[in-house]
C-alpha cells in the first residue's frame, strides 16, 4: 500500500480513534517528520485530558433527587415559576461567545437571566419604535404642545400616573405620545428627538409581576431597548444610540418616571 499524505484532519481522527489501524504506523512516522504537527497533536491531547479532568467529577456526584423522581414518576407538577430555565444559561453562553473568555469574571450564572416576559416587553417596545419613530408627520397622536392632556390621557388609559420625563439634559425634547396595545393591556409610548433628529422612545405598561432589568436588541445594528420591570409596571427606552448613551438616557428617564409614579 502506498503511504498516503496526512494532514491536520488526521490529527483529529487519530485523537478520536477514527484513524484506520493499518494507517497508524505511517501516521506516526508523518508526525515524527513534522515537528509542528506533532506539537499541535500534543497540545490537543493535553487539552482533551484537561477537558476530561474538568468534568470527571460530575459522574461521582450524587444524582439529584428531583431527577430520580421524574424517572420514578413522582415528579411534582411544574409551575410557571419553576419551569426550566436552563436555556437562559445558553443565552449567557451565546453572549459570552461574543465577549470572549474574559466574560467569566462578571459571573456567568448571573448574566442572561432574562425572562420571556421581559423579552416580550422589550420586543413590543422595539417594534413600536421601529414603526412610529420612522414616521415624519404621524409619529405621535398627541403632540408635546399638548403635554398636560397627553399625560392625563395616557395615565388614565394605562392605569399609571405618568409624567413625561424631561430629557433636555440628555439633549432630547418630547415630540409627543401615543397609546398602544400591549398584549392584553395598554402601553404608553412617548417619543423624544434630539436636535439632529435622532429619536428615542419610552414605552410604559402597567403589566408586570416581576423585577428585572436589562438590555435587549432584536437584531444586529437595530435599535436596542434598555428595560426595567418591577411589580406593577414595566418600562423600556428604545433607540439606536451608542449603548452607554442609551443607558444614561434610560436611567434619567426611569428615575423621573419612578418619581412621577410615586408623586
Amino acid at each position, binding site marked *: 500500500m502506498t503511504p498516503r499524505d496526512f494532514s491536520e484532519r488526521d490529527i483529529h481522527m487519530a485523537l478520536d480513534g477514527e484513524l484506520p489501524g493499518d494507517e497508524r504506523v505511517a501516521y506516526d512516522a508523518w508526525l515524527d517528520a513534522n515537528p509542528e504537527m506533532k506539537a499541535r497533536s500534543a497540545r490537543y491531547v493535553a487539552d482533551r485530558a484537561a477537558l476530561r479532568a474538568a468534568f470527571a467529577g460530575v459522574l461521582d456526584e450524587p444524582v439529584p433527587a428531583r431527577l430520580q423522581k421524574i424517572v420514578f414518576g413522582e415528579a411534582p407538577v411544574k409551575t410557571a415559576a419553576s419551569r426550566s430555565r*436552563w436555556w437562559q444559561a445558553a443565552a449567557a453562553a*451565546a453572549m459570552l461567545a461574543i465577549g470572549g473568555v474574559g466574560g467569566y469574571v462578571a459571573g456567568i450564572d448571573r448574566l442572561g437571566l432574562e425572562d420571556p416576559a421581559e423579552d416580550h416587553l422589550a420586543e413590543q417596545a422595539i417594534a413600536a419604535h421601529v414603526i412610529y419613530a420612522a414616521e415624519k408627520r404621524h409619529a405621535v397622536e398627541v403632540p408635546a404642545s399638548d403635554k398636560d392632556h397627553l399625560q392625563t390621557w395616557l395615565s388614565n388609559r394605562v392605569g399609571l400616573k405618568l409624567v413625561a420625563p424631561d430629557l433636555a439634559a440628555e439633549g432630547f425634547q418630547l415630540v409627543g405620545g401615543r397609546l398602544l396595545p400591549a398584549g392584553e393591556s395598554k402601553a404608553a409610548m412617548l417619543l423624544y428627538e434630539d436636535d439632529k433628529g435622532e429619536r428615542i422612545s419610552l414605552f410604559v405598561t402597567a403589566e408586570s409581576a416581576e423585577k428585572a432589568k436589562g438590555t435587549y436588541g432584536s437584531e444586529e445594528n437595530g435599535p436596542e431597548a434598555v428595560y426595567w420591570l418591577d411589580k406593577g409596571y414595566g418600562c423600556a427606552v428604545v433607540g439606536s444610540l451608542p449603548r452607554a448613551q442609551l443607558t444614561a438616557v434610560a436611567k434619567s428617564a426611569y428615575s423621573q418616571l419612578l418619581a412621577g409614579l410615586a408623586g
Partner: protein
Amino acid sequence: MDEKKAAILGEIPRLRRYARSLLRDRDSADDLVQDCLERALVRLDNWQTGESPRRWLFTIMHHLFIDQTRKVNRRGEVAMLPLEAGEAQAIPAEQVENIASREIIDALQAISPDRRAALVMVAIEGFSYAEAANILGVPAGTLMSRIARGREELRGLLDDTARRRAIRIVER
C-alpha cells in the same frame, strides 16, 4: 421498576456531565437533564428495543439544547446591563476547580454551541464519529469539521488566556 426506567436511571450521571459541559452552571444543566427525562418518559414507547438508551437520551437532550439555543439566537443577543460593582462577582465555587479546569471550562463555554456539542460528544463522552453524527443529526463531514474547528478555537482561547496572564504578571 421496569427495565427501561432502570436503564434511564443509569444514564443520568452521563447526561448530567454532558449537560454541564454544554451549560456550565450546575442548576441550569440539571434543568436541561430534567427536561430531557420528562420528554423521554412521555416518549417511552418511541424507544426501540435494542436501541442504546444512551444514544436515545443524548439525542433527546441534544435536540432540546440546540432548539433552545437557536431560539435564543433568533431573538438576538441577550445581554444584561453592565453589572454594578457590588454585583460583579466571580463564579461561585460550587465545584472545586483548579485554574486549569476553570480556564478550559470557560473556553469551552465561549465556543459556538454546535462546535461545543460535537467536541464534547467525542472528546469527553467517547462517542464515535458515526454515533455522534447520528445523535447530533448532522453528516459525518460536518461533525468532523465542527470537532476540528472546535478544538482549534478552544486552543486559541486558551493561548489568549495564557497570554493575558503573562501580561498581568509582567505588569505586576
